């Protein structure tokens, strides 16, 4: 009886560990042979002795329709276009980010890309392995880094400002909203600039904001929050809340109102409901980290990039016409005019003629927005 109990318990625990392992440590995606055979250049040349190798470690699994998916697109682009061998390792959240990073380090990579990994974990490992190069495509909120870390800091405020211009131009109720994952400078960089954009074209507009207490995986709460803002009269809501944000888009669809997407091109999640997405091109920074390091241009420390580097903008810039094709006629009629306005401000911002509030680095323009 007793031994049977232990057998069963053992079976149970082995089964759950097995499933857990399948869930997180996915066999690395190594498109070597397949990618090479489709690439005529590779078949001509003899196989290189040692290919440049990289691993991308994700903070959470793929499928966020947001910056994680964007980073994967960049890594896949690097694997397809550059003579590199890449792998993607998904972690299941903070608890196993360290083990995921360690397994990437043990794979003899030329560079390990760590996307939005908990800063202490990354810095400690970078100090422990001074000869391993690390790259951070986005979001590393620390003061200083060791010399073997190259981190991109994408400043999104200018893109969010353009999103605000669109919302301010299209609102009928003169009330718009924003649902943010949490109250931090990194996320407020989106919100303050968005609010500034709305008020720029609609000075008497109301701008609601709700924070979700850093609950990025709770679409149910995201939806109820958005429904609350819609009930208060908002007709367009900007979501900056990861998977919780999908609830915002769902609420917009249910109410027949509108949303603005974030990070990736989310216009197609709900065609005709998502007006535009404020893009944060983590795919570009991911690709650049691989390419620059391969070319011998590894640049330690922080690398601040923004709209002028082409990493921040709107989904319209990359040719999304989903809303123009499927949105209501009365709104799409206004789009050409709004796009002209957006371009006007984009030029002004790029020529330093107009200052957008940056919550990470606050100046006087931010004061009226708080």
């Amino acid at each position, binding site marked *: 009886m007793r031994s*049977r*109990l232990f057998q*069963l*318990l053992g079976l*149970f*625990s082995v*089964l*759950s560990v097995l*499933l*857990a392992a*399948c*869930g997180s440590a*996915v066999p690395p995606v190594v498109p070597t042979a397949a990618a090479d055979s489709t690439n005529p250049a590779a078949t001509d040349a003899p196989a290189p002795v040692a290919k440049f190798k990289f691993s991308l470690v994700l903070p*959470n*699994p*793929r*499928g*966020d*329709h947001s910056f*994680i*998916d964007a980073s994967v697109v960049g890594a896949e682009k690097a694997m397809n276009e550059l003579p590199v061998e890449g792998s993607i390792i*998904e972690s*299941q959240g903070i608890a196993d980010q360290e083990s995921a990073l360690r397994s990437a380090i043990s794979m003899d990579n030329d560079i390990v890309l760590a996307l939005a990994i908990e800063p202490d974990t990354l810095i400690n490992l970078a100090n422990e392995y001074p000869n391993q190069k690390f790259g951070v495509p986005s979001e590393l909120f620390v003061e200083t880094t060791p010399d073997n870390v190259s981190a991109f800091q994408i400043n999104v405020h200018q893109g969010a400002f353009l999103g605000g211009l669109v919302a301010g131009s299209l609102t009928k109720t003169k009330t718009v*909203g924003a649902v943010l994952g949490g*109250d931090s400078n990194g996320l407020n960089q989106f919100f303050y600039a968005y609010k500034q954009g709305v008020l720029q074209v609609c000075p008497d507009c109301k701008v*609601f*904001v*709700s*924070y979700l*207490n850093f*609950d990025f*995986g*709770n*679409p*149910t*709460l995201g*939806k*109820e*929050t958005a*429904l*609350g*803002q819609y*009930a*208060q009269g908002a007709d367009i809501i900007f979501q900056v809340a990861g*998977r919780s944000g*999908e*609830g915002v888009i*769902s609420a917009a669809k249910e109410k027949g109102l509108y949303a603005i997407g974030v990070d990736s091109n989310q216009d197609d999640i709900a065609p005709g409901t998502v007006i535009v997405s404020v893009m944060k091109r983590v795919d570009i920074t991911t690709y650049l980290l691989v390419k620059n390091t391969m070319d011998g241009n590894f640049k330690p420390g922080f690398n601040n990039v923004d709209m002028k580097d082409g990493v921040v903008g709107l989904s319209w810039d990359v040719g999304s016409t989903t809303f123009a094709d499927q949105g209501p006629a009365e709104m799409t009629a206004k789009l050409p005019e709004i796009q002209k306005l957006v371009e006007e401000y984009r030029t002004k911002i790029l020529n330093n003629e107009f200052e957008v509030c940056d919550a990470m680095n606050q100046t006087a323009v931010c004061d009226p927005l708080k």
Partner: protein
Amino acid sequence: MDGSNGLLIVDLLRSGIRLATPILLAALGGAISNRAGVLDFALEGKMLLGSFLGILAAFWLHNSYGGALVAVLAGGLLGWIFAFFYLKYKVDLVILAIAINLLISEGTVFFLRTFYGNVGSWTDASIQQLPDIQIPIVKNIPVIGQLLSGYNAIIYASWILTALLYVVLFYTPFGRHIRAVGENKEAAKALGINVARIQYFALILGGGMCALGGAFLSIGHLTMFTRNMSNGRGWMAVTAALFGMNNPIGVFLASLLIGVADALAVRLQMLTTIPPMLIQFLPNVLAILALVLVGLRNRANVALIRRKFSLKSQKISEDGKSEAIS
């Protein structure tokens, strides 16, 4: 002004009811298990299974009610498995709960990846959300109609189940048996009550209710499944069951309090300038306060029972003495 304030309150309560429903269903499931003497920490996993299978079945069957039914059956089956391991092999309840919670949370990710190649979230355009139902007559009553009508079937089911469980637990012989098993298993057994059967029943029913709460998330409120969708609501339900003193009406009020506090937190930060951190702390403060009140009440009850008991035994011993003297 008054009218718009009234509307705001109705909107707040409706949002609170929607947020409370998944917690309420799981907490009712937890309460019935607690009443039968099994502390169930696997509510979270049972809920997640319901979310996952509910939406998959809705997709396969092209019918969301079918999806909810499959979720309930699967939850019941999981409840039976839980009961089987606990009653037949005497597996420790905490270990069993951890195993089930882990197995479901990783298993859903595993199956999503294997069959749909995605783990973040999954949906399909063909899946229909459970429709909202307008109750005839009631819907025309001002305010009350707005408050009580126009929810989907799972919300109404949660109310009916609350009432039903209350009646069964406190007004039927079967309910008395369940409570007897929870109060004192040995005594119940001595009285000829089939303890194992009662516990099987409670766990199967509880599993089904948790899964229905989970299905509410994926097909009643949204039409998508996201990884770890239950997001701690199963643990909130464990609290709500204890805090409602395992009484269905108490559990209902406790869940409603949690739901309305969440809805209030969302709205307060929109309409006031109170720092959002403070407002988001509000539901937790309310929970702690309520638990303190429950604790005090329980202590008072225990003291009362002791006093009655000592009075009685005093009386008995006095009677004994007087008998001896006479």
